[in-house]
């Protein structure tokens, strides 16, 4: 029997009962919501750690209660091989990447913006030079470059984060450049010039503030994820914060032997912290990108 769709009315509200993942706007909001939740958690934990407002003293060694499993009275996430409270150490571990990560983000955004504006606004030789610079930076595996810096200087987290920041410059600058070129295509810049606006006003106010703001926020979240990944990787490799000061990376490393004995929580608690935090920053970046920059726009 042939179906007839003629009675389909103009509006079919019922079709809005799509599975939720098809409602891209809701999915994006969920991404951003989760991301903001993680960011808030990280910031609060950082502040708590700075003022030493912790459930337990993270350095308090308790040899009677070593490797206590999660849920042990007084130790929500258990204790490590020296009987120290894992939850407290996780919270304090944020200190290891928080400020250095912000430094990396700042460097990437600042230099990325400057180069992006030069390449996008001036074009020509600047653009070529920046393309070469980008290719040059992209030639190094980031971790190898950092190890080189460690060997040449010292394993200082701020040196490391300068490298992380500088290696993120090309991504930021190419986004800014793309945006400016897009605005130029739309005669946005000419309009400003013909209105007699000074170049500084056009670039700072009309280009950067009005049009690149969201882009910079997105890049900041992605940059922070990179910084956390690098800090945890390096402290895992033993180049970052050293025992007894906790960092998520060295906690995973210290728990390795116990992991193999089936006492997973020592490594797993910091590893999952890394996972959920980086996931949060990634989803925040992508969600914001879809919402603010309208990549899905359909």
């Amino acid at each position, binding site marked *: 029997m042939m*179906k007839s769709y003629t*009675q389909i009315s103009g509006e*079919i509200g019922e079709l809005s*009962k799509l599975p939720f993942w098809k409602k891209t706007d809701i999915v994006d909001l969920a991404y951003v919501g989760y991301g903001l939740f993680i960011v808030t958690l990280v910031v609060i934990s950082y502040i708590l750690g700075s003022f030493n407002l912790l459930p337990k003293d993270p350095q308090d060694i308790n040899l009677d209660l070593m490797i206590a499993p999660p849920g042990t009275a007084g130790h929500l996430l258990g204790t490590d091989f020296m009987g120290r409270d894992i939850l407290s150490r996780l919270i304090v571990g944020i200190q290891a990447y928080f400020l250095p990560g912000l430094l990396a983000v700042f460097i990437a955004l600042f230099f990325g913006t400057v180069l992006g504006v030069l390449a996008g606004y001036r074009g020509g030789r600047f653009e070529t030079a920046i393309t070469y610079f980008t290719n040059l930076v992209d030639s190094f595996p980031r971790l190898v470059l950092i190890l080189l810096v460690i060997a040449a200087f010292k394993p200082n987290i701020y040196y490391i984060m300068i490298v992380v920041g500088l290696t993120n410059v090309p991504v930021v600058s190419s986004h800014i450049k793309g945006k400016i070129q897009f605005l130029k295509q739309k005669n946005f810049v000419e309009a400003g010039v013909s209105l007699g606006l000074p170049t500084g006003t056009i670039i700072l106010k009309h280009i950067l503030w009005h049009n690149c703001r969201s882009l910079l926020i997105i890049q900041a979240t992605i940059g922070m994820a990179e910084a956390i990944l690098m800090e945890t990787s390096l402290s895992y490799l033993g180049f970052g914060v050293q025992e007894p000061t906790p960092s998520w990376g060295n906690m995973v490393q210290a728990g390795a032997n116990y992991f193999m004995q089936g006492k997973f929580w020592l490594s797993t608690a910091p590893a999952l912290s890394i996972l959920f935090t980086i996931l949060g920053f990634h989803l925040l970046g992508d969600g914001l990108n879809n919402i603010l920059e309208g990549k899905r726009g*359909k």
Partner: protein
Amino acid sequence: MTTGPLLKIEDLRTYFYSRSKQAFIRSVDGVSLKIKRGETLGIVGESGSGKSITALSVMGLISAGPGVISGKIGFKSARMQKNLLQDLDEYVSLAIKDGKIMQLSKDFAGWEKNSERIMGRVRGKEIAMIFQNPKSSLNPFVPIGKQITEAIQLHTSIKNEQKAKERAIAWLDRVKIDSPRLRFENYPYGLSGGMCQRAMIAMALACEPSLLIADEPTTGLDATIQSKIVELLAELKSELGVTTMLISHDISIISRLSDSVAVMYGGTVVEYGPARAILAADFASKHPYTTALLASIPSERNIREKGYLQAIEGDVLDTINIPPGCRFYGRCNRVTAGIRENCAFKEPDLREIAPGHKVRCWLYFD
């Protein structure tokens, strides 16, 4: 030789679901057309009138997610006979409440598979299609000659590479491409738009299809090249007698090539009949929309009589919220007091007013 029309579209409806508006866009809303063997049917209308969607529905190229097609497209050539929309609606399930569709879901994969199964032996072999913007319609990574050879090897008995190449070169020559042997090796980017469209036409006709669908074949080309492509199509028509469905917003191209004409407005056919009757110079016994279209042709006569070119006032119909009456009512300048009520609240049907000449307008009904 089989009898009856080559293509018979009955009550074709193609609706797309708009996610943002949460409603169906009725791009094609009950179209019935016939194309006789050897005839050229011109379909004319503004953009958004549903003419291209009609063609794409015939080709089974409607792939947009939650869209539905209903009706019947009977195709009957010397080699096959089938309904091109066979069983498609089995992949759509409806929840009907109080005679209204409340929910609609579509098995996209099944629909697609079924459509591919039906259209597999039709596309290219039985029905070939040429598009607007020929430069982007040819594969930029493959020399044009290769693209024609591919079609020949797919759909004709010529499987031998060398023979297919000779045939392709003969076709390039036939569509009047200079030095076809040289052009055979060229990529689309090295050729002009007109040249690409000739290659497209050669590719479409090389498999000797029963039906050629030309969807806006001159759009996107320079004016002088447009007329050359039209000339080529006219020549090929008289030489080969290929049955054609010609779609254009340009009524002068339609009038040059068509035997019969369908005028489309808002997803429906508003006037349908022999080209002579519809495109005749006198404005009597025509749908007001056709009249307006004819008046907008930049011809000597139109300019001399009015001193200016008449544009059709108003906007193209919103095919989501279709008004209850005639779809052209809002833009019509020939509504009379006697029929106004009908025009506003009752949709006219497509009625025969002269042998073979149908119009959808209250003006001609008693």
